[in-house]
C-alpha cells in the first residue's frame, strides 16, 4: 500500500490487492463502492493530477492508447489556469461490436467512472461534464448518478448506435446536437471542441483507473502489470462457440493465458484478432505474446481497447474477413469520398476472393485499394479497416493461396 497523504487520511480502506481493481467492489451501489474504495479524496489541482498520471504510465483504454497525462497536458496551460472553461467527456459509446468492457464497467462499477469524471473535472475546474454511453447502460448509469449528491453536474447522454460513434469528434458533434459523425479537424479538440471550448475526452475505463490513481497513487497503479503496460486492463475475450466475457487482467498478460482462463482451447485456434475490427490478427504460433505494445508491434496490433477474439482453425479466415470488411464498409459515415467509395470496393474484391473467384490479381487489388484509402478520411475508419484487411492477407497467406487454387476446405458459414 502506498503511503501518500490521501491514503493516510483514510487508513480504514486498503488499496485493492491483486488484479481485481476496477472489479473489486462486490456490488454496483454507492455504499458498497465507498466501503470498498473509501471516499474520493479532495480534488488535486491539474499539475498534481498530471504528475500522478505521468508517473502511473496509464494509457488510454479507448483504442488509440494515448498516454492519459498527455491528453491532459494538451489542454493549453492558459485554459487550465482559468476556471470554468473546459468540457470533460466520459466516452462509453463502444461502437465496436466485439467490445463489451465499457458497458460491463458501467454496470458493475459506475461509481469509479463517476469518480474519474469528477477528479478530472475538479482538477480543471470544468465548465461542463458529460457521460456519453450506449442505450443498454443508461438506466444503471442514471441510477448511479442519482445515488450521490456530488454528481448532479454530470450530464448523461445516449450514444449513437454506430461503429464510429465513439470517435472523438463524432462524440462532440452528437453532444452539440449535430449528426454523430466525425468532423474534419485542423485544430485539436483539447484546444477547441464542444462549443469552441477546450474539450477533454477520456474512455470510461481510463477514468475509472484515474479514480483509483487519485486514491492510491501512481506507485500502487504500477505494482501490477509490466513496465510497458502498467496496471490492469479490462478485456473482452471470446472465440467461435464461446460467448464473450469481460475480465480484468494484469497489463502485459500472455494472450494465450487470458484465452485459456475463459475456457478457450487455444490449441484449436488458427489466430486471434487483437483490437477488434480495426485491429490485427495474431497467428497461433504467437499466442504466448504479451498483451502489450512491444510484443504486438510486429503484428501491427496494440492492446487497444482490449479485445481478443479467437478464430477456430475450421473457420475460413478469408470468409470471416470478407464479412467484417463488408460490415465496416457499411459503417462509413458517408462523407469522405475515398472512404465511401474505397471501403466497399475493397470489401467487394475480398468478397470475390472468399466466394471462389480464382483471379490471381485479387490479393494485389485488395492491397492497392487498402493503400489508397489509408490516411484519406476525416477519421481513422479507412485506416483501421485497411489494417485489418492487410493483416488478413499477411497472416492467412496460405488460406489466400488455397482460395486462388480452389482448395479451401474450411467452413465458410
Amino acid at each position, binding site marked *: 500500500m502506498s503511503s501518500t497523504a490521501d491514503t493516510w487520511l483514510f487508513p480504514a480502506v486498503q488499496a485493492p490487492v491483486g488484479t481485481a481493481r476496477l472489479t473489486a467492489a462486490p456490488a454496483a451501489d454507492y455504499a458498497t463502492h465507498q466501503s470498498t474504495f473509501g471516499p474520493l479524496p479532495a480534488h488535486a489541482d491539474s499539475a498534481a493530477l498530471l504528475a500522478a498520471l505521468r508517473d502511473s504510465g496509464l494509457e488510454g483504454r479507448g483504442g488509440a492508447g494515448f498516454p492519459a497525462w498527455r491528453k491532459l497536458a494538451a489542454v493549453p496551460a492558459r485554459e487550465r489556469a482559468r476556471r470554468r472553461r473546459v468540457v470533460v467527456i466520459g466516452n462509453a459509446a463502444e461502437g465496436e461490436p466485439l467490445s463489451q468492457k465499457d458497458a460491463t464497467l458501467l454496470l458493475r462499477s459506475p461509481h469509479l467512472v463517476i469518480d474519474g469524471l469528477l477528479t478530472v473535472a475538479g482538477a480543471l475546474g470544468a465548465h461542463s461534464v458529460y457521460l456519453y454511453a450506449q442505450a443498454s447502460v443508461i438506466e444503471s448509469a442514471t441510477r448511479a448518478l442519482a445515488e450521490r449528491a456530488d454528481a448532479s453536474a454530470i450530464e448523461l447522454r445516449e450514444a449513437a448506435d454506430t461503429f464510429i460513434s465513439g470517435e472523438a469528434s463524432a462524440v462532440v458533434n452528437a453532444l452539440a446536437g449535430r449528426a454523430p459523425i466525425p468532423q474534419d479537424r485542423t485544430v485539436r479538440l483539447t484546444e477547441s471542441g464542444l462549443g469552441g471550448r477546450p474539450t477533454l475526452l477520456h474512455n470510461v475505463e481510463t477514468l475509472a483507473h484515474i479514480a483509483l490513481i487519485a486514491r492510491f497513487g501512481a506507485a500502487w497503479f504500477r505494482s501490477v502489470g509490466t513496465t510497458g503496460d502498467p496496471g490492469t486492463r479490462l478485456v473482452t475475450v471470446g472465440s467461435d462457440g464461446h460467448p464473450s466475457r469481460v475480465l480484468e487482467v494484469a497489463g502485459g498478460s500472455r494472450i494465450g493465458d487470458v484465452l485459456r482462463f475463459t475456457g478457450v482451447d487455444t490449441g484449436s485456434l488458427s489466430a486471434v484478432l487483437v483490437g477488434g475490427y480495426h485491429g490485427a490478427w495474431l497467428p497461433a504460433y504467437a499466442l504466448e505474446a504479451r498483451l502489450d505494445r512491444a510484443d504486438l508491434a510486429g503484428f501491427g496490433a496494440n492492446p487497444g481497447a482490449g479485445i481478443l477474439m479467437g478464430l477456430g482453425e475450421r473457420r475460413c479466415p478469408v470468409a470471416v474477413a470478407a464479412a467484417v470488411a463488408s460490415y465496416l464498409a457499411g459503417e462509413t459515415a458517408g462523407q469522405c469520398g475515398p*472512404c465511401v467509395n474505397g471501403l466497399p470496393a475493397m470489401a467487394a474484391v475480398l468478397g470475390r476472393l472468399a466466394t471462389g473467384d480464382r483471379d490471381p490479381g485479387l490479393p494485389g487489388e485488395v492491397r492497392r485499394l487498402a493503400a489508397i484509402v489509408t490516411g*484519406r478520411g476525416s477519421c481513422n475508419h479507412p485506416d483501421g479497416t485497411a489494417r485489418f484487411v492487410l493483416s488478413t492477407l499477411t497472416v492467412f497467406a496460405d488460406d489466400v493461396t488455397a482460395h486462388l487454387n480452389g482448395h479451401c476446405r474450411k467452413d465458410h458459414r
Partner: protein
Amino acid sequence: MNLRTPEARGPAAALLHIDWTRCDGRGLCTEILPELLARDDWGYPLAYGYGSAGAGSNVPVPDTLLAAAADAVSLCPRQALTLVDP
C-alpha cells in the same frame, strides 16, 4: 494509375489540408497541382507518396509550388482545401 514516388523536393513550406467531408472529387486541384496530386479511382485528389504518415490528408507543399497551392485553395469550388503550417 500513376504511382510515382515523390522526388526529393526539400522541406515542406506548408501542408495542403484536404477536408474530405467537403471534397466532391471533381479534381480541379489536380489540374492546378499535377506535381503533387493525381486522381484516385473515383476522381478524388491523391497525393504522390500517399499512405505514408498522414500525407494523404495533409500534402507537403514545397516552396516552389506554394503559389499554385494557394490558387488551388481559392479556386476549390467546395472550399475543401486549406494551407496549414507543417
